[in-house]
């Protein structure tokens, strides 16, 4: 799957870093040390901002926690600084968990302000010296140097190798995380939070994870910084510092690991180069930021999606490969109805009971009783504004209904979160396509498999056997579904580069990959021409035969509705106005009235 060939440029860079200190003077070795610290910090913010897209402008707070925990525990209790490395990480991570839990749901700019606030609160708290712990504005001095037994790290060269050694380990861990289920989940979040949640990603959990890991890494940087300088003070951890970290990630390229390292290098080296114009360095720096954003807004080393070698690039192999691949479902699900009134639920996979949804004073759906039969295609039709998409949004958990209930396979799923509903066996597509535009097609489809996989942080970093097996399974299954919808040869293409019709099929593939027993499609044929719509009809009928699946769809295209539906429900003004077999609905006077108006 991933071919390992000797990466000559990388090797040269590593050699350079190893021999650099022996050709340099103390001043520049120290600069390189700080390069390393900022690289750690940049990478730590990259997890939060770059991979997950969370607008964090207060990251220096976690850096500060790491530094101060080290300072306090070392100077007060004499605990060796080396032992405090994991302690700092833990403290910063725990702090992040506690403060971001209540605010993790906030949208972009609001989250930004709250993170700025957290940064300021930490800095001010450090200055104000609560409980006489933090040493006030002058900080804490006398922090010891790290040592491995008798081998102390107390020269510039030793610190250089110390920080770059730790950095190298973390870079490897981060690369592995990036290429795992976790990294993909973060990217899904960043690209489209609602689609991610709907695909089965527990959005809240992964956002918190990003913050905790990012904070922990910043805490490590804080420890290293404290042990080198032997002093910590609040004015290191200002909003300007957080902004610098932000700029590091942006300059390098969002979500790019080499980019963040490069960005750190620029931020550290830049003031040194401009030392000749000492007082005006920041002037140039500010100008340089603006100029970089004008000409390279994507960053200097933007993230390249991983190209997964797909063997079946030729169309001729496609048919054989579909048969050859088996879909192995690692989590077989049961269809047992658990409600007492099993007769309704045996015949119907989805039942809504007097479902009502309102937005403020506007009632969008009123007392809707909807049933979807097992293994059948049910269509909802109605003029725009009838409330059809709202019904979908309530059923899939995006909104909580004002009153009424939704039952899926006999279980009450009202009010569950979207990712929970997906894991129970429902998948959907959206009226305005919601793909992950900057991810490849295969990565898009793999989103549907996320909830079926189990590997988490440790197994992803260590690349355990079970994780590797799981990844291969996911990749194979995603490839199967891509081929099934006819996109087998564009697996590595970015989703945003596909033409509209193919994007619709990609979204369908993503929905199907989660092995739903109920597929909910919102206007699947909108934007498709007649030929494409016919293909879609054939496709839907085929999967109905092949899989244990029921389909519920919203449609305006009457050919499609009449052509493949077993049952049609007509809505107008939030209420059901008619239901029955397609032929009955087609001539129903109330339906005609809703679409065309009454003859006066």
């Amino acid at each position, binding site marked *: 799957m991933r071919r390992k060939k000797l990466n000559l440029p990388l090797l040269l860079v590593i050699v350079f870093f190893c021999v650099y200190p022996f050709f340099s003077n103390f001043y520049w070795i120290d600069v390189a040390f700080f390069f390393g610290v900022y690289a750690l910090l940049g990478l730590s913010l990259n997890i939060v901002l770059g991979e997950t897209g969370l607008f964090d402008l207060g990251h220096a707070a976690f850096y500060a926690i790491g530094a101060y925990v080290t300072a306090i525990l070392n100077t007060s209790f004499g605990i060796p600084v080396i032992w405090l490395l994991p302690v700092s990480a833990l403290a910063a991570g725990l702090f992040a968990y506690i403060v971001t839990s209540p605010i993790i749901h906030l949208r972009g700019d609001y989250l930004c302000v709250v993170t700025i606030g957290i940064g300021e609160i930490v800095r*001010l708290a450090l200055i104000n010296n609560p409980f006489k712990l933090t040493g006030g504005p002058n900080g804490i001095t006398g922090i010891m140097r790290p040592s491995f037994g008798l081998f102390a790290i107390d020269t510039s060269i030793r610190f250089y190798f110390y920080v770059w050694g730790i950095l190298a380990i973390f870079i490897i861990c981060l690369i592995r995380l990036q290429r795992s289920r976790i990294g993909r989940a973060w990217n899904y979040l960043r690209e489209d939070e609602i689609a991610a949640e709907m695909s089965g990603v527990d959005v809240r959990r992964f956002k918190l994870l990003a913050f905790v890991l990012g904070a922990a890494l910043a805490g490590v940087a804080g420890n290293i910084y404290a042990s080198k300088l032997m002093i910590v003070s609040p004015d290191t951890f200002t909003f300007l510092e957080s902004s610098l970290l932000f700029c590091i990630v942006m300059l390098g390229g969002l979500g790019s690991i080499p980019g963040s390292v490069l960005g750190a290098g620029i931020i550290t080296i830049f003031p040194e180069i401009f030392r000749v114009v000492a007082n005006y360095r920041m002037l140039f720096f500010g100008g340089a*930021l603006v100029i970089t954003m004008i000409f390279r807004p994507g960053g200097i080393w933007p993230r390249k999606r991983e190209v997964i070698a797909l063997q079946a690039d030729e169309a001729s192999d496609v048919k054989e490969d579909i048969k050859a691949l088996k879909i192995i479902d690692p989590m077989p699900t049961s269809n047992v109805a658990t409600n007492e009134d099993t007769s309704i639920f045996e015949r119907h996979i989805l039942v809504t009971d007097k479902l009502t949804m309102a937005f403020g004073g506007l009632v969008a759906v009123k007392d809707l009783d909807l049933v979807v039969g097992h293994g059948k295609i049910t269509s909802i039709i109605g003029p725009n504004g009838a409330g059809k998409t709202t019904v979908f949004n309530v059923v899939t958990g995006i909104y909580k209904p004002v009153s009424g209930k939704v039952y899926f396979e006999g279980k009450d799923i009202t009010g569950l979160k979207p990712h929970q509903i997906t894991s129970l066996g429902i998948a959907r597509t959206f009226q305005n396509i919601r793909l992950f535009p900057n991810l490849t097609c295969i990565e898009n489809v793999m989103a549907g498999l996320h909830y079926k996989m189990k590997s988490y942080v440790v197994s992803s970093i260590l690349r355990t056997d079970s994780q590797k097996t799981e990844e291969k399974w996911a990749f194979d299954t995603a490839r199967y579904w891509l081929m099934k919808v006819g996109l087998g040869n564009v697996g590595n293409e970015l989703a945003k580069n596909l033409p509209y019709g193919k994007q619709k099929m990609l979204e369908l593939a993503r929905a199907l990959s989660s092995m739903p027993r109920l597929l909910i499609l919102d206007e699947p044929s909108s934007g498709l021409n007649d030929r494409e719509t016919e293909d879609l009809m054939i496709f839907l009928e085929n999967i109905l035969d092949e899989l244990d699946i029921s389909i519920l769809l919203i449609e305006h295209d009457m050919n499609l509705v009449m052509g493949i539906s077993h049952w049609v429900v007509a809505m107008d003004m939030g209420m059901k106005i008619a239901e029955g077999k397609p032929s009955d609905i087609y001539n129903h006077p109330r339906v005609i009235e809703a679409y065309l108006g009454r003859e006066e």
Partner: protein
Amino acid sequence: MTILLEQLLNGLTIGSFYALIALGYSMVYGVMKLINFAHGDLFALGSYMGYTLLVWSAGAISQRFGLWGGMAAALLFSFFAVGCVGVLMERIAYRPVQKSGRLPLVVSALGASIFIENLIMAIWGPRYQAYPASVVPVHTISLGFFHITVMQLFILILSFVLMLILYFIVQKTTFGAAIRATALDREMATILGIDVGKITLFIFFLGPALGGMAGVMNGMYYRQISFVMGWNYGLKAFTATILGGIGNIPAAMLGGLLLGLIEMLGAAYISSAWKDVFTFLILIIILIFRPTGLIGEKIAEKV
């Protein structure tokens, strides 16, 4: 009681500064979805511009036209000068970056902020400057049991008038409707024939201009100015904008005043050292319960 009233007055005064700066933030954010981090530094720039004018040739203007004449000149000069700088900044730092998305704009804004702050330092030096006593009125008026300085009164009245004018423009005129339309849906606004370029010009002139005036008033009130004053006020004003609800101009004014009050009451009754912590904590708590601000923005995401 007296103390409470005086604290309220202080809170309203500082809140007026926050409100005037917050207006600029809100207008820009509404139309461009950009958090203009440079805005606080424009406030500082205004302060320095007013200072320069008043101190130039030893306060010639104040000597010629009297105290109030001098102040009016400083305010007007700042208004126009900072307004022009604002427009220039938009042309250079924001317009070319806008097509690249929101995050590059933030970095560009941070860069512009750093640039302007250091420009001030380069021109006027890193040490504090002070508005000389001779150009600023210092009498106090006694209203029975409490005192209010002439300066405070002036600031409150002027700020209130400015906010009222802006409120009127934005809410009651056709041009204001065009601004609000552009803020809600820029693309649609251009299709409907709204000249978005003109609106951008207006916003990037008026927002910074008001901030510049606030800078002069701040300089006259506190007398001491330094090149770092921008970012603190900018941060607070940004907080105020969020407090009210981004993109909502009247809400920004309210947010600013409220923030000033919260801060002063916090300083008076809790502790001066912890007042900023208190303010930010209040903000975080409000956002937890009202995630789109106190008054809130009126945007619904179509799913």
